[in-house]
């Protein structure tokens, strides 16, 4: 294009030389020449500015495509991890239940062993139940089809019931409770149960057997504070904001110590928002984490 522009100038100059005698009408000639040169310059500027504009547009476009592709890749990877985790999480309880039942069917064991196998099987079905609840609720959320059912309820009783159930499921664990009575709030029982179960399950998963789990419920000015504290490894500060993201899990999926879907805390956050409450995580002393949900009343 630039070459074309240059040729145009040369052609015009030549034509000018042919039609106007530069010596006889000097003024006309120089005027015409200036016009030709001016055209040439303007043409040049036009081409350069067009080029730069297009180049910038392409750059901006590329940046957008890059960002979208990266987001897509990240999401895809997370979803793959999620599928892998769900496969594992769904199949393990089924495997245990099936194996235990087949064992009971095959051998006539002593009553003590039978009882143990049955207790293990029940714990696994409970795990399966809470997992399906999580998955169902999250897909309902995605389709925006969940209708919450808000009613007056006693949070103290609900919290106590949940902890009691966990104590039955995990008889070897220690649960300490400091639950003040008669904390009434407006809420959805199903969702609040899910919230408490998710937090309790995390506390159990991420701390060792001999460490206690502390559950507290108290009123502080105009807020009700519900907290569940474990004495496990704790969560690094840079991970803290990320753990409430959907599908987010700390570490590598293939070689992790604990299994999970990356849904629990994400749903806990959504449920907290449903109840106009905040959920936060802080460090426990000497070790571990405290998850606190604060309901405004």
């Amino acid at each position: 294009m630039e070459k074309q522009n240059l040729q145009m100038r040369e052609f015009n100059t030549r034509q000018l030389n042919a039609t106007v005698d530069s010596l006889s009408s000097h003024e006309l000639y120089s005027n015409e020449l200036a016009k030709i040169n001016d055209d040439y310059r303007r043409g040049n500027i036009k081409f350069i500015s067009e080029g730069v504009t297009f180049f910038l547009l392409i750059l901006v476009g590329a940046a957008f495509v890059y960002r979208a592709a990266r987001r897509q890749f990240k999401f895809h990877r997370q979803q793959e991890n999620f599928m892998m985790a769900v496969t594992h999480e769904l199949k393990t309880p089924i495997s245990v239940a099936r194996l235990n039942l087949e064992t009971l069917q095959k051998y006539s064991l002593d009553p003590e062993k039978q009882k143990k196998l049955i207790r293990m099987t029940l714990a696994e079905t409970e795990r399966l139940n809470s997992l399906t609840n999580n998955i169902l609720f999250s897909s309902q959320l995605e389709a925006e089809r969940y209708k919450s059912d808000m009613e007056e309820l006693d949070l103290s009783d609900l919290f106590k019931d949940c902890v009691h159930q966990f104590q039955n499921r995990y008889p070897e664990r220690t649960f300490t409770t400091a639950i003040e009575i008669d904390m009434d709030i407006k809420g959805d029982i199903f969702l609040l149960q899910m919230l408490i179960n998710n937090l309790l399950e995390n506390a159990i998963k991420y701390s060792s057997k001999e460490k206690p789990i502390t559950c507290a419920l108290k009123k502080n000015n105009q807020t009700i504070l519900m907290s569940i504290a474990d004495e496990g490894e704790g969560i690094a500060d840079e991970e803290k904001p990320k753990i409430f993201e959907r599908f987010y899990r700390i570490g590598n999926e293939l070689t992790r110590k604990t299994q999970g879907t990356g849904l629990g805390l994400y749903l806990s956050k959504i449920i907290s928002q449903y109840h106009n409450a905040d959920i936060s995580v802080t460090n426990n002393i000497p070790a571990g984490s405290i998850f606190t949900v604060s309901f405004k009343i």
Partner: protein
Amino acid sequence: MTAENKKPSILLVEDEENLHEALKLNLELEGYEITSVYDGSAALKAIGDEYFDLIILDVMLPEIDGINVTETVRLQNNEVPILILSAKNTSADRVLGLKKGADDYLTKPFNLEELLLRVHKLIDKNKKMQDKETIGDTYSFGNNVIDFKRRKPKLKMEKQYN
């Protein structure tokens, strides 16, 4: 080498506690000697320290996953039978497991009877192979005897080979 009357030994690598216990109970009832480990690096350590007739291995394990464990064991020229027990059930997963050196691949949830049969067969086959490999010092066919120690065949015809 295990003695005739000794129980076959199995290394059980599974991190899911309830599943681990139920498996262990079943295998013990079938008369196997079980060594329990709950993660990949402990499994590698146990395999280095001890002889096992079979390894039952989960794939999704803490620290080192089961596929890596299998690969490492095979790289060490250890031919111990490995049975992978995994929730990952696509054919790509099975192919990967078998390619890396597993002898068998069973997906969760599995049938108890099938698992026990496969365990029995793998141990049996391995034993037979080992018996074949450790033929005595001499081998005879017809009238001929080969003495592996002398590295010379001794033939009835009294012909000498150098």
